[in-house]
């Protein structure tokens, strides 16, 4: 009886994720800062899972960062979202997959708004037609790219060459997961595990054999805060939020951090660097930082992709000690080479945090 009750309760924390035929829209932050992550997602979906994922070059930003910086009105973002849906409809797709968590939140919020206020959807239709002569159908299924990876996590894990295990001890690696605010804070029933039991990354990490660290500030924001990072004068807010998380997770000695939202890996990576320069403090082992992955990068790494082809050299915290711990071989020289193997030269070294 109790078990049945639990199962029923847990049903509220699941979501439907389409099986194939996805219309993929990129993230402004991810494609600028972690282009290899998006490429890795498409490679996994198309090459490993043999799924149909379509990207239309005509799609644009959803303007979400502008909306949450309060320069883009609601009417505008609703119409831009309607245009993205129009491209999806035009190409014969109905399963919409954004790469960005802010976008995922925006699409979710607008679809909810239209459901409860059909007159708002009507206005979006009118505005879109007036501006572009376009029409659209709302998606049949909306899932973040990480939801889709979660759906196929066991298949990906079965194909993987590596696991999140310390090769010298055989023990699971300790993993901090960070799902990002706009994944499920606003509409918990649209995220796997809701806001209380974040499962989208946990499920992936556990499929790879890792162990999740449940630390006090697990659900706290990384500190992006839109205007709180984008304007230089406000960045104290941003670094303070990240610092609070680092201080809270550090006693658990995590081996790595995995993130859902495109911005969080940047902040959790770069604020570690900044704190090391400001305070001489590092949060990893032996003067290193804690390496921060995007979910696509981690999946690609476990599948055996070259770390420097998925873009781990775009981060400031060094990954090499972790690669050694797992037993992943890498070419240290190749880290700084272009696609043809030409050496591009090394970046400057941080003063405090170890880097290679």
């Amino acid at each position, binding site marked *: 009886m109790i078990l049945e009750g639990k199962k029923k309760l847990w049903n509220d924390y699941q979501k439907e994720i389409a099986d194939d035929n996805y219309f993929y829209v990129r993230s*402004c*932050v*991810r*494609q*600028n800062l972690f*282009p*290899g992550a998006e*490429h890795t997602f*498409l*490679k996994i979906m198309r090459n490993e899972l043999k799924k149909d994922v379509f990207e*239309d*070059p*005509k799609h*644009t*930003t959803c*303007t979400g*960062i502008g909306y949450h*910086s*309060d*320069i883009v*009105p*609601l*009417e505008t973002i*609703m119409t831009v979202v309607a245009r993205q849906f129009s491209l999806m409809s035009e190409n014969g797709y109905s399963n919409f997959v954004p790469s960005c968590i802010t976008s995922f*939140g925006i699409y979710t919020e607008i679809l909810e708004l239209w459901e409860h206020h059909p007159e*708002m959807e009507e206005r979006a239709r009118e*505005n*879109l037609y007036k501006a572009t002569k376009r029409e659209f159908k709302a998606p049949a299924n909306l899932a973040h790219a990480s939801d889709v990876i979660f759906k196929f996590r066991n298949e990906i894990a079965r194909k993987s060459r590596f696991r999140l295990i310390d090769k010298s001890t055989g023990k699971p690696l300790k993993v901090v997961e960070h799902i990002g*605010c706009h994944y*499920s*804070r*606003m509409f918990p029933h649209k995220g796997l595990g809701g806001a209380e039991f974040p499962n989208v990354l946990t499920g992936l990490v556990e499929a790879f054999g890792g162990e999740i660290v449940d630390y006090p500030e697990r659900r706290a*924001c990384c*500190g992006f*805060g*839109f*205007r*709180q990072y*984008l*304007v230089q*004068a406000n960045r104290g*807010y941003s*670094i*303070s*939020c990240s610092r*609070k998380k680092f201080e809270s997770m550090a006693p658990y000695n995590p081996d790595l951090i995995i993130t859902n939202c495109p911005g969080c890996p940047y902040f959790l990576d*770069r*604020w570690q660097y*900044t704190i090391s320069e400001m305070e001489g403090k590092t949060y990893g082992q032996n003067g290193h930082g804690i390496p921060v992955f995007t979910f696509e990068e981690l999946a690609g790494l476990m599948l055996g992709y070259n770390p420097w082809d998925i*873009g781990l050299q*775009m*981060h*400031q915290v060094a990954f090499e000690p972790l690669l050694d711990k797992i037993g992943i071989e890498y070419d240290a020289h190749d880290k700084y080479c*272009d*696609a043809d193997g030409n050496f*591009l030269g090394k*970046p*400057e*070294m*941080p003063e405090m945090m170890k880097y290679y």
Partner: protein
Amino acid sequence: MEDYYKQLESDIRFKEGIRACINCGTCTAICPAASFYDYDPKKIATQVQTGDNSIIEALLKSETIWYCGECMSCKTRCPRGNTPGLIIMALRQLSINTGFFVESEKGRQQLALKRAIGGNILKYGYCLHIDTIDPELHPEAGPIWKWIRKHTEKLFERLGGNYGKDGPGALRKIPEADLDELRQIFDNTGATERFEKIEKYSAAKADKMGYKTSQTSLDPYFMMVFKHNSNTHYKKEV
């Protein structure tokens, strides 16, 4: 005095954001901004709930409404289903429409956001663009960012990107016809008007404060609002 409350009520986010706040303070307890800034979302909910236009006008001119990071943690936890973050978004919109945003240090920053993010959206079709993330303005991006900027084209090629080129892929060049559609949407739905208001009110304020502003570049007023911090905003240690 104008009926600011009525204007707030016409914003769906305000209507959805507050329904009889019971003043429990859960939003303040969970709020990242409240743990850093001298900020209290519960107090804001109480203030707007009065419907008193003089109180609302003071809020529109205040630093307070610009402290929120729009993480929406308040939405998850409010036992009444309210969202102070949405109330803030409605207040910020009204502050821009009325021009009151230039009366606060944090509000004046809207010019920097309009030019940086708004400029990127209309020029590239992305909220951010690597070519505009200047390492000098982003020291926290670290030495690796300088290296990435130096080798952008080669790195994007290696990582499966399509930097500045036609066709799909990360940071592809979005076709001009599609950027035109985006601009048409901005013109037809109030974004262009909002951008013009931000420039207009900022130019008048810059003039009053003795700064030069040129509307297009990183002018002295832009740099001032982007960098200046009076350090008077923080939560006092208890």
